[in-house]
């Protein structure tokens, strides 16, 4: 490997500098934008102090996309956008043009070629919010630890909530996200609605694999609940099923600790997380449904549960009132009723580090009937 390197050889050269990729109008008005207007779902008009105007046209994508689709998008961007386009932080793609007259064609061509719908924007001044894409992860497409698939569930949910993406008819921002295991490779821990894959059976220790591939003390130490004992003589590990809460941390460390059970893996649903500072501090998401089974290919129970929660909020929230703001106004008592959910002991925090759990217990007697 340590042979002579070719002249073009380099490492640590970093990503292309962003300015190489900026459209002319952006370079010119960089840092000098005056305001924006959402002129229709998916289309944002941005006006600079100079008076220059640019339009960004947003399309939903399945995130997992083919190089052939990317090339199609490139073709359209070449045709209408001087070869410029960008992706957003939520898996959407935006075509960028200074020419308002091209907007219809761009939308039509993208939709026809790729099937990607125009939408996903929100308009705070008019209090009309669209639903954006679902942030999600790999699932059965690529990861080794998932308890659920990612893309398939996202597809099933977005099919159901499609109209909210293409129209802007929500009272406030609503961010949905999904992670296929408790590692939560997404903003699942701080989203208005989120889905996380969970296991429900302890690791089924594979002694051979453990011996071959794992460092025993490190794996045992990785368990947040101290549920793993090293069996020094047998050179393997033992799990205390009464202490395990199925986080999968040990499996991440050691392939000999698989905790998959097709019948008992599934999804938990969380709500009321938030990231922006608008009106209300950021918030962690909270579990409101402990478990829904895997039902591929269309996950009907999960989808209908999400829709139920989504509508309970969408139909009752005030303007600009995000999930946490809504629930804090009406109370968790009322939310469980409205969304037709059952409260059970699983939802009361009992995670190992006790005072953290306590921070969620209700002190005092101020609650509703």
């Amino acid at each position, binding site marked *: 490997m340590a042979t002579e390197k070719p002249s073009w050889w380099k490492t640590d050269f970093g990503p292309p500098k962003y300015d190489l990729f900026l459209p002319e109008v952006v370079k010119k008005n960089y840092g000098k934008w005056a305001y924006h207007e959402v002129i229709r779902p998916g289309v944002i008009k941005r006006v600079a102090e100079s008076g220059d105007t640019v339009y960004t046209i947003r399309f939903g994508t399945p995130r997992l996309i083919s190089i052939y689709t990317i090339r199609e998008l490139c073709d359209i961007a070449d045709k209408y956008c001087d070869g410029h386009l960008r992706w957003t932080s939520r898996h959407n793609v935006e075509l960028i043009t200074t020419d308002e007259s091209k907007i219809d064609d761009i939308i039509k061509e993208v939709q026809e070629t790729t099937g990607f719908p125009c939408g996903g924007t929100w308009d705070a001044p008019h209090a009309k919010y669209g639903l954006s894409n679902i942030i999600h992860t790999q699932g059965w497409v690529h990861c080794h630890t998932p308890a659920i698939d990612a893309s398939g569930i996202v597809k099933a949910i977005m099919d159901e909530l499609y109209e909210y993406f293409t129209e802007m008819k929500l009272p406030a921002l609503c961010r949905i996200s999904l992670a296929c295991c408790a590692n939560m490779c997404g903003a699942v821990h701080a989203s208005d609605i989120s889905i996380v894959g969970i296991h429900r059976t302890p690791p089924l220790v594979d002694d051979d694999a453990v011996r071959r591939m794992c460092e025993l003390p490190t794996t045992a130490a990785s368990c947040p609940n101290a549920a793993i004992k090293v069996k020094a003589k047998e050179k393997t590990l033992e799990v205390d099923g009464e202490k395990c809460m199925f986080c999968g941390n040990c499996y991440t460390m050691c392939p000999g600790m698989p905790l998959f059970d097709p019948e008992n893996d599934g999804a938990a649903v969380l709500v009321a997380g938030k990231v922006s500072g608008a009106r209300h501090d950021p918030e962690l998401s909270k*579990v409101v449904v402990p478990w829904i089974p895997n039902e591929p290919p269309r996950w009907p129970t999960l989808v209908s549960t999400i829709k139920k929660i989504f509508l309970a909020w969408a139909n009752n929230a005030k303007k600009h009132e995000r999930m946490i703001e809504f629930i804090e106004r009406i109370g968790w008592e009322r939310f469980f009723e409205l969304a037709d959910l059952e409260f059970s002991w699983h939802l009361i925090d009992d995670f190992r580090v006790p005072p953290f759990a306590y921070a969620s217990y209700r002190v005092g007697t101020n609650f509703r009937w």
Partner: protein
Amino acid sequence: MSETPLLDQVPDGPWPSFVREIRKTAEGMEKAKAEGKDVKMPGCAKGLLKQLEISYKDKKTHWKHGGIVSVVGYGGGVIGRYSDLGEEIPEVHHFHTIRVNQPAGWFYTTKALRQLCDAWEKWGSGLTNMHGSTGDFVYLGTKSEHLQPLFEEMMQMDPPFDIGGSGSDLRTPSACMGPALCEFACYDTLDLCYDLTMEYQNELHRPMWPYKFKFKLSGCPNDCVAAKARSDFAIIGTWKDDIQIDQEAVKEYAKWMDIENEVVKLCPTGAITWDGNELKIDNKNCVRCMHCINKMPKALKPGKERGATVCIGAKAPCVEGAIIGWVAIPFIPADKLKERVKEIVEPLWEWWDDEGKFRERVGEFLWRKGMGEFLRVIGQDADVRMIKHPRTNPFMYFEKSELRPSKVVEEHTKRGMKFKTLEREEEEE
């Protein structure tokens, strides 16, 4: 020069002075002695002044750890205390306190108080705390050998006074004045307090648990005995139905009160509206915080379906951090309180006694065990009213009975895996 130059400065200012109380006691005791009364510790209060002066000079306490001192048949109720200046100030060499179980609501007759004073003039320092933080009437400072005769005198008072709690036992329960004087009381705090105290005399008098356990009873969420902050088991009066409104009385208030700004706008859930004529409360939205009722006691009253909420776990910060009690039982109807509280607290004690660690308060114990197990132990379902918000992590336990049959579960079972269960000691039952 005065023997107590530092303490001499204390009486400055208008607030009543404890130094003056001690001096008054010193003088009174000496005088009583001089009058030929049977006063065993005539110099004790004076001794305390001396020691206190030294503490004020040294900026530290001169009391030492107490050994175990008690009265016959009791394991607690006396705090042993010795001076490290015992040689210098023999009058306070011993300086034990006795916790006397106060009457619920701290109502006294002069007759009873005079008996308590007389006995203390004879057997103790003549100093008291009215009252200790837990609620007891505290006899402050006596010798080991006086404990027993004093207690025997207490037995013979009319009515007799018993000893309160100390050590790892039930502590003396206390209650707000409730129905005796207050229009807000949602249940009979005095009666329940008395009932629990009587029922659990053994638990109160013979330390037996991992640590102390406190009941406090308040008749409404105003919580005038700070039960939510200071008792492992706080019983807080409340109601479930609609606030009772007397619209005419509201109009009376409206004549001088700014109802919009002081009532409507301060309702934490915005449940009140006032159109200048009628006050409306959206009771589904009311969290029974008491504010509007406190503001207009003539016009508003708690509902008619009354009872109490139990908040559990409150305590001071040692060891795991301070706790304000959290909701453990959202509602017990008033007429079921005596029965239900016992049905809840007894299995809780049993469980804590079995599995609690040394010096682990019930609150900390429940943190460790989880509310799921608590609910199972007391035989109750979870209620959303128990939480401020649901958990923020997906690390949930599931019981075996909740799992679907599967090969993996079969294999685990075959290998002898013990699954989580909330049933207690399943095997033994």
